[in-house]
């Protein structure tokens, strides 16, 4: 079966939420839209305080370069533009909209459109207008991803449906409930990448949807489905590309340079919505799970809702919950404030009754080598950890520390419970800072 070298096998806990159909919930009074829900520059607000906004309206415009439009998911009035805490733990300039519960939309919202009459550039423009970014976690603007130097050099369009993080089932539910919309989205993207073959990549713990797509794609020459070994981080971009195409890229290379474009299931469905139904990115499907939730679910929420509002929709938190994670437990962020808004990056909210790592005690490294064995990039995490303790940036770079994809497999497996990936992340930031300073001083 297709896979990559390295990786770990955390218990997936997907049973908690996988049988819960996607359920749409209603927005509440106030919605918060951070102007940065993507990699790159913040969007620039184009609505004034007190002005009325409509569902689907662009309220902040993408800046030059890498950036994305921000779109209102309700109709109402712009109340304020101020710094607000986001799920990543950063304060970001955010636009606060008061919901008038009228859900009045922009013109043509939800109107069908035949993508076959559109040129590649027109499709990319619609994707850009709709504010679509990669919904798998990195939040890279999709229109930019769809505009490599030469679109005809793209041989593979990989649909990342690995969903390798434990607990999360939102992609699984989308595959199960809207397979035709996904295929429609793929076809739209294939009109942009005319020479490409699309492959839906599914881990073998979701065999039912694999079989569903096998049937649906029977006789389809442009789109196929592949089964991948269930292993974390199978959904990592470099791991996925290697597993399916055996091509290898490093941190300095874009997938497009290897002839590959990777898009997450949710992103492709957002493309289908935007291009075929004129619905910009205003919803996010979120898995709520974990033993700290009264109930679990896969929730379709309007972007901008508070986490607390979403959690309350499935019955709320149990008494004395110790940890809440935005995203999956391997790469997600532990949050302390439930008033943060649902953003394009929100894939799951997981609540733990007992913090699973609270009791673990750090001991000495015994050089067992497990961290190196599981590293999908073949790094030596224990040596990088040493370099970070010594703040030896040069030594860190020499050991290829910058190649780390921060998947956390090393920390997961470490019997001495060392904060390996945590210290590597810090060093990567230091290394980038140092490089910038040197460039600056050089000039």
């Amino acid at each position, binding site marked *: 079966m297709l896979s990559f070298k390295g990786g770990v096998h955390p218990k997936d806990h997907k049973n908690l939420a996988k049988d819960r159909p996607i359920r749409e919930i209603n927005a509440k009074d106030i919605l918060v839209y951070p102007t940065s829900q993507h990699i790159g520059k913040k969007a620039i607000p184009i609505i004034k305080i007190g002005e009325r906004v409509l569902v689907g309206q662009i309220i902040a415009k993408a800046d030059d370069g890498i950036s994305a439009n921000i779109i209102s998911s309700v109709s109402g009035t712009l109340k304020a533009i101020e710094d607000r805490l986001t799920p990543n733990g950063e304060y970001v300039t955010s636009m606060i909209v008061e919901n008038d519960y009228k859900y009045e939309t922009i013109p043509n919202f939800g109107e069908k459109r035949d993508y076959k009459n559109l040129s590649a550039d027109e499709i990319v423009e619609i994707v850009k207008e709709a504010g679509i970014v990669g919904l798998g976690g990195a939040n890279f603007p999709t229109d930019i991803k769809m505009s490599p130097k030469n679109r005809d050099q793209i041989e593979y369009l990989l649909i990342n449906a690995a969903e390798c993080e434990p607990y999360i089932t939102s992609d699984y539910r989308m595959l199960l409930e809207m397979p035709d919309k996904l295929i429609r989205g793929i076809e739209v993207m294939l009109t942009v990448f005319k020479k490409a073959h699309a492959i839906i990549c599914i881990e073998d713990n979701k065999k039912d949807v694999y079989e569903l797509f096998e049937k649906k794609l029977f006789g389809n020459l442009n789109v196929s489905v592949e089964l991948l070994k269930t292993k974390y981080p199978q959904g990592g971009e470099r791991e996925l590309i290697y597993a399916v195409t055996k091509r290898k890229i*490093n941190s300095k290379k874009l997938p497009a340079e290897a002839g590959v474009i990777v898009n997450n299931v949710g992103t492709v469905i957002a493309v289908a919505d935007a291009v075929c139904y004129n619905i910009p990115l205003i919803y996010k499907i979120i898995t709520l799970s974990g033993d700290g939730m009264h109930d679990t679910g896969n929730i379709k929420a309007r972007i901008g809702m508070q986490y607390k509002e979403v959690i309350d929709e499935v019955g709320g938190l149990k008494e004395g919950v110790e940890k809440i994670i935005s995203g999956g437990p391997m790469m997600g962020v532990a949050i302390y404030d439930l008033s943060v808004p649902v953003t394009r990056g929100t894939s799951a909210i997981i609540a733990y009754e007992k913090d699973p790592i609270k009791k673990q005690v750090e001991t000495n490294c015994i050089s067992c080598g497990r961290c190196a064995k599981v590293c999908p*990039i073949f790094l030596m995490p224990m040596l990088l950890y040493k370099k970070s303790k010594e703040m030896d940036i040069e030594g860190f770079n020499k050991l290829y520390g910058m190649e780390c994809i921060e998947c956390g497999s090393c920390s997961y497996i470490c019997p001495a419970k060392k904060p390996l990936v945590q210290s590597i992340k810090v060093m990567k930031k230091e290394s980038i800072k140092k490089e910038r300073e040197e460039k600056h001083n050089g000039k």
Partner: protein
Amino acid sequence: MVNNFNVSSAPHIRDENTTKDIMLDVIIALIPAMAFGVYTFGTHALTIIIATVITCVLSEFLFNIVTRRKNSIGDLSAVVTGIILALNMPPTVELYIPILGSIFAIVVVKMLFGGLGQNFMNPALAARAFLAISFASSMNTFVYDGVTEATPLILLKSEKQVDLLKMFIGFIPGTIGEVSALAILIGATYLLIKKIIDYKLPLATLVSFVLFLLIFSGKGSNANYVLGQVLGGGLLFGVFFMATDYVTSPVTDFGKVLYGIFLGILIGIFRVFGKSSEGVSFCILIGNLFVPFIERITIPRPFGKGGR
């Protein structure tokens, strides 16, 4: 709406396996060798094992107290050191010798270098070397069934035949834990199945050692000689339980193979050209010194930059 939720950096889940679990598995894997040693050499062997374990744990405990460090005996690594040291002792050795060795292993070789993981030599092996030099005669007397006997390797050196079946089961003179190939292989199988050790290092050592014998011993055609060499003199105990010590062996697969070949050749040189017919522990100790070098030259190329 700030709640008292715990905040930490990802990953938020960890594998349950700890250092203590690994040490516990090593202890379990040593049970067959211990049991056979006690069965064949009697209660003095058991006394030695108990004495070294207690001394090792106590030494680490007291060292931590004196130097005001966090107590570390809970990781069970001192127990492993104690057992391995005991299994490296001749069954008739006076009790104070292994006790002294235990203190040396823990205090000098392990704790003074910073404790578990910081030592560059295997503590039990370094202690055995220390004792072999300090108490040469006690450490080199091998009694079997009440009579002092030549070990199989000495017999092989003097061109005699050895009883391979007896060697395999362990009815031969030697140290407490090294005599029974069977008991060692049972323990080693456990470690391999539980993925505590990797087969690459022991295999590389054994293959390169046998090849060395075939080429340089002049007795390569003599199956009794070659097999006797493999079964005798603590080679199996050494490659499966001491060379594979995480702290003092390379991390990468390629490093393990290189280290294994290095040890195999070194043991071959000691056995074929050396005066002393034993010497696996000394070879591993010498090998330990080369590990940092092997580590440095075997850092893998990362994925996408020419790696694997």
